[in-house]
């Protein structure tokens, strides 16, 4: 079967033919005639070098196609063709390889319908690397995030991509290919992990990213990742995901609900906001659940984030000196603010963590909406269709 591919194109209506992209492209994948500036799909490797140098924004165009547009076709264009219907919603092609697409579809099921990206989200790059052609990243850090006494081993892993382009947005995931073979003698399929650093790197302007990984009993990949040492090389696919993304609008109010390592994308969201809009106030709310404070990843650094930059509500279900408390309980306690976000046309809700949290959170939303005379199912469907309700659970 012919896999659809993502093709990089230039909008001839916006482009001013300055050819800066052509001069910048390290692969000479961009050329022009008297009419148009065009991209050779057989050469472009999505390194994205041409994107920031374009003065017009015309270069940031992508289409998912079964058969790439030829140079001749592109030279004839007066305007960019619409995305063709190829059986997938191009607004949200989460992954081009089927196994990863299926995993993400399963993870996003809890939203109750077709997921959409926030209107102002940046355009994600998807599937730059796959099983046949993975990227190689070098491990530059591996730190335990949970206390030594805890039986839960959650780790912060830093991967550096060196000179390989690896453009990733907050909320996207990458695949890690564990070495070895399964019982049938086939190589292991990649496992998906949410990136926990912002787009410009764990360290600004370094080509690196971080993951937040919990060691699972007998987990082939999680044990592999948690045992990695600085200097080790890891094979990576992705990036994946085109809907669970951060709106660029710094005024968008985000309600982020997570448990355990579900906090990974929210760490990325928060860091992006801190770097891009450090003076933003009262537009981030985090509801974070764990068994105990010692097992809550990033508990220390999180406490240092000022409350007016991000309101934080922790729920601990096994705290010795307190009652069992879950994220849904925190939502109910904050019902006034939650109701405000539900009513705000610029409010966004993100849920990330174990599948088991979905039901309780939905119930809480239902109750909060009902108390205000609103119907949760309608709100949810509208928010989801507008790219403002996102669920990623596993």
């Amino acid at each position, binding site marked *: 079967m012919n896999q659809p591919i993502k093709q990089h194109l230039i909008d001839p*209506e*916006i482009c*001013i*033919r*300055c050819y*800066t992209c052509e*001069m*910048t492209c390290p692969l000479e994948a961009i050329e022009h005639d*008297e009419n148009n500036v065009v991209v050779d799909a057989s050469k472009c490797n999505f390194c*994205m*070098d*041409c*994107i*920031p*140098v374009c*003065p*017009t*924004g*015309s270069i*940031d165009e992508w289409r998912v196609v079964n058969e790439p547009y030829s140079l001749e076709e592109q030279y004839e264009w*007066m305007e960019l063709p619409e995305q063709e219907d190829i059986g997938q919603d191009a607004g949200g092609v989460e992954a081009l390889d089927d196994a990863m697409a299926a995993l993400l579809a399963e993870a996003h099921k809890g939203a109750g319908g077709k997921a959409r990206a926030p209107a*102002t989200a*940046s355009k994600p790059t998807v599937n730059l690397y796959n099983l046949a052609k993975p990227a190689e990243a070098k491990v530059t850090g591996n730190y335990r995030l949970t206390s030594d006494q805890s039986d839960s081993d959650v780790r912060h892993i830093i991967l550096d991509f060196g000179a390989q382009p690896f453009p990733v947005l907050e909320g996207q995931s990458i695949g890690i290919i564990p070495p070895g073979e399964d019982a049938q003698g086939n190589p292991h399929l990649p496992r998906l992990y949410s990136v926990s650093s912002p787009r410009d790197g764990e360290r600004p*302007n370094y080509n690196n990213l971080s993951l937040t990984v919990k060691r699972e009993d007998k987990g082939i990949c999680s044990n592999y990742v948690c045992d990695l040492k600085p200097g080790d090389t890891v094979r990576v696919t992705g990036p994946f995901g085109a809907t669970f993304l951060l709106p*660029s*609008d710094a005024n968008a109010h985000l309600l982020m609900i997570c448990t355990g390592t579900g906090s990974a994308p929210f760490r990325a969201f928060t860091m992006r906001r801190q770097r891009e809009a450090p003076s933003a106030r009262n537009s981030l709310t985090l509801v974070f659940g764990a068994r105990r404070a010692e097992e809550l990843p990033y508990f220390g650094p999180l406490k240092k984030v000022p409350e007016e930059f991000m309101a934080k509500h922790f729920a601990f279900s096994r705290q010795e000196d307190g009652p069992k408390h879950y994220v849904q309980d925190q939502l109910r306690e904050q019902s006034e603010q939650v109701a405000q976000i539900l009513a705000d046309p610029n409010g966004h809700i993100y849920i990330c963590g174990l599948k088991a949290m979905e039901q309780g959170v939905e119930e809480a939303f239902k109750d909060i909406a009902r108390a205000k005379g609103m119907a949760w199912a309608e709100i949810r469907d509208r928010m989801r269709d507008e790219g403002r309700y996102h669920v990623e659970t596993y």
Partner: protein
Amino acid sequence: MLDLINVSYDTQIPNNVGLSQDKKVLKALEKWHPGYINWWNDLIPQNFQESLVYLRTAVSVDPKGWAKFDYVKMPEYRWGVLLAPQVEGRTIPCGEHYGEPAWQEVPGEYRNMLKRLIVIQGDTEPASVEQQRMLALTAPSLYDMRNLFQVNVEEGRHLWAMVYLLHKYFGRDGREEADDLLRRSSGSEEAPRMLGAFNEETPDWLSFFMFTYFTDRDGKMQLESLAQSGFDPLSRTCRFMLTEEAHHMFVGETGVGRTIERTCQVMKENGIDDPYDTAKIRDLGVIDLPLIQKKLNLHYTLSLDLFGQEVSTNAANAFNAGIKGRYMEARIKDDHQLKADTYTVWDFEDGKAVQKEVPALTAINMRLRDDYTKDAAGGVKRWNKIIEKFGIDFEMALPHESFNRKIGVFADRHFNPEGQMVTGAEYDKGLPEWLPTNADGDFIASLMKPCYEAGQYAGWIAPPKVGIDNKPGDFEYVKLHMA
């Protein structure tokens, strides 16, 4: 090791040339710096200096790092010295030294020629900021104001780029030339800028758009040919400047395009099909297409003059010396020495304009001008597409290169925009149809009312199709400081 990609902020002057280890040049530049800041501060009205502008700044010269957007007050913009990465083993791309290793130091025999080219280029950079200093007062939107300021700070940075070369490679007379770049001033009686086109005021926004489209495009062509220089530091400087220059082309092309679009739109809304029904069109507060054509005629022909004489020994010498190449020299397939080639230029014989073949070496200016015309024609074609979309019967066109010229073989002779020679009387009669009149200027000036509301645009210009840095339509590109 010296990091030559990322911009270092360890001195007052951001740079990727290891300034902190180059004490002598650093000291000279630091001495020059206050004069520059004074120049800037005296130039642009104070409340704009205090405003926060959403600007693009380079944090490194590789593609990933040179477009970081953030709010900044213009006087705090990080002007700096940025050179494109050095290409290993680069050779001199043209002239008698073709194929020899590119010079990393100034070749003694060409010192004066090089210095002069750098000074002329450097002189245009602050000049355009001076010409445009009052425009923000009538900005048609915050989006346009931001684009103006981006152009201004980048022209300022280009001055820095040239001043660095003067300080670094030309010793005491380089420093004196650098000081003179701040002493001369656009339109000044005592010390005007070196090139004529840079002593005219930019009186309104349509002129600004035409200027960035046509005159900055000359700048782009000059930078393109200096980027081909065998003197490697000049080549690297100009290569990086070109990435910034592209933004100026963008401001010009879309500015004129949006003006045209708005005119067409208002004509259609009011059932006007005749583009020459100018009184009615002007009453609706938009600029009629024939007047836009007249502005185009003016700015295009002024810019052609910047290329100098068609046949020039100076240009031949610079090419032959390997100091200045042709547009896209590296992609031209010939001997790069022009030993036997000829090129077609205009000349004047027996009272008639004729085209004739001359040694290509002497026609370097003409060739660059032809490349310029080709480049400029592209945007005109795209403007016409806008008019066509509205179904209005009007076509913009570049006038013939003989029209309205002050330099070269056509200078001060009477040609109409089609390139036919006309009598003085015919010329005087045609002129109000060909070039903007005082009344035209007054009309445009009457439309220049500021529009400072985020997401709003003055009535004579359409909003852009795409925001800067992908920002939404109502983004506040300038946070105005209201004293």
